[in-house]
């Protein structure tokens, strides 16, 4: 009997707490598979955020450090610089990375820190119950924008991959999603490329994943993926944003 597919050894054998259809579990798995395929599980150090993925360190099989809200890039900076030969990555949501941690991610990218950031953009604060994020689309409803986000009140959503790509220290940025198998395969290739560039010491690498939050979007998982492709992928175009 041969195994065609099984849970990655880059994940611990524990159930995850994410809601049905949430993209977090899929992205965790892709990172885990890349770590397993590149034989990095025993060396890698994950920096986890505050938000829904606050427990990521209990799911990844590698060592992990829980950072304060938004500070993962600062934590990762010290971890990578003191352990330059080991793979280090931050896993951050949009509230964590684009709002409270905006300074930390911009300066890590500016310095060209040799770690990888996996940015989960689901256009909402998930853990706290659906408040408006910097990435919430215009017109999209949130508990702190019940009539939908307006430009006048909250400005236009932030395209983080493009913003960071203006910085010389960033060598690779790609925006992906995991709504179906072709997109998921592309997302995994992007994560792998980011890790490869990190291990080659090229500079800061960034993968933005457009992610579904069916619970806080008020949709079923399939409908959420459809909405993601119709609305999010229109404002946040998929593909390589920068590659040096």
């Amino acid at each position: 009997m041969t195994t065609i597919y099984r849970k990655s050894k880059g994940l611990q054998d524990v159930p995850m707490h994410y809601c049905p259809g949430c993209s977090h579990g899929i992205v965790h798995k892709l990172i885990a598979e890349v770590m397993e395929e590149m034989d990095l599980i025993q060396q890698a150090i994950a920096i986890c955020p505050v938000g829904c993925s606050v427990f990521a360190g209990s799911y990844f099989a590698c060592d992990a450090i829980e950072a304060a809200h938004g500070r993962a890039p600062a934590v990762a900076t010290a971890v990578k610089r003191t352990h330059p030969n080991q793979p280090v990555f931050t896993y951050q949501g949009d509230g964590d990375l684009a709002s409270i941690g905006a300074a930390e991610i911009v300066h890590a990218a500016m310095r060209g820190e040799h770690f990888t950031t996996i940015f989960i953009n689901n256009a909402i604060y998930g853990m706290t119950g659906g408040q408006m994020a910097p990435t919430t689309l215009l017109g999209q409803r949130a508990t702190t924008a019940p009539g939908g986000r307006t430009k006048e009140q909250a400005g236009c959503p932030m395209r983080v991959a493009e913003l960071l790509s203006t910085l010389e220290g960033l060598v690779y940025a790609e925006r992906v999603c995991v709504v179906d198998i072709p997109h998921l395969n592309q997302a995994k290739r992007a994560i792998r490329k980011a890790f490869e560039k990190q291990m080659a010491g090229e500079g800061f690498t960034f993968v933005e994943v457009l992610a579904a939050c069916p619970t806080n979007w008020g949709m079923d998982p399939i409908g959420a993926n459809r909405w993601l492709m119709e609305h999010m992928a229109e404002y946040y175009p998929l593909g390589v944003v920068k590659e040096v």
Partner: protein
Amino acid sequence: MKREIWKGSEAIAEAAIRAGCRGFFGYPITPQNEIPEYMSVRMPAAGGVFVQAESELAAINMVYGAAACGVRAMTSSSSPGVSLKQEGISYMAGAELPGVIVNVMRGGPGLGSIQPAQGDYYQATRGGGNGDYRTVVLAPASLQEAADLMFEAFDIADQYRNPVVVLVDGLIAQMMEPIVWKEHPGRPLPEKTWAADGRRGRAHNNFVTSLFMDAPDCEAHNLALLEKYKAIEANECRWEELMLDDAELVLVAYGTPSRVAQTAVEHLRSQNIKAGVFRPITLWPFPYARLREIAAQPQVKRFMAVEMSTGQMVDDVNLAVAGQKPVAFYGRCGGVIPHVSEIEGAVLAAWKEGL
């Protein structure tokens, strides 16, 4: 051993390197800029990591990161910057990470002044961040002591897995004094088996976190921290007693004011007033028990706390003395250093009032 003239900030930085610190993360703020400036050259030469962070917030979180993967790390700042670091200090206490934070205190609140002050006593000893936690607070009064205590700071941090604050006023950092670089054999320290520095064959993953979702788990964590703090209180209390054997009036002061107070006491003794100085070296744990013993001595008539603040440590003096004897206070603040004659005058006034 050779005596060398050092500037306070640079002596603190050099002592940290000699104590094995291999990560320095800071942000410019007066009056402590010589520490990151010195570190920017010396730390890479020692094989360590220096990063000028984008903010004090980022700097303390870099200390958190380096500590979490087992590296001796520190940051330094001055009062307003240390306020920004409180988030990270709370997280370090919660995740039980060792690290050293040097606060070169200046006048406050807000931007305040850039001259020496002691207005951050409450923040340092009570914990300026959220939650039930304590930081060990070491308060040197000379450059020799500052250099020596940096070694102790890293050892205490590692032994108890807890952040340690080295609290000095701006004068200690800015003045020059002779120091001798002593051998510090250090204490036996536990291995950092908890560090998240890559599994490398370890059977399980290490996850450094301060999150406990279930209240009973979080309570158990708090109670375990409390046991640790009790051990620190039992083992790490330090103080110095100057001319206290026959003292009727006890001045209590730390840092720069303790030196001014010492000179004032010498003057007072020449006027046949039996005064002495009790100098806490650890502000937390505060030497309550010893001060209470002193208060119980029959010849001791009264106490006077002398601070470069409007009166913060005096609360701890009152807690220690517990009403056994009167406790007076004299302070200057906002960056003003009390003159010897002022302290003398305050003591004489209090003395007359007592007689």
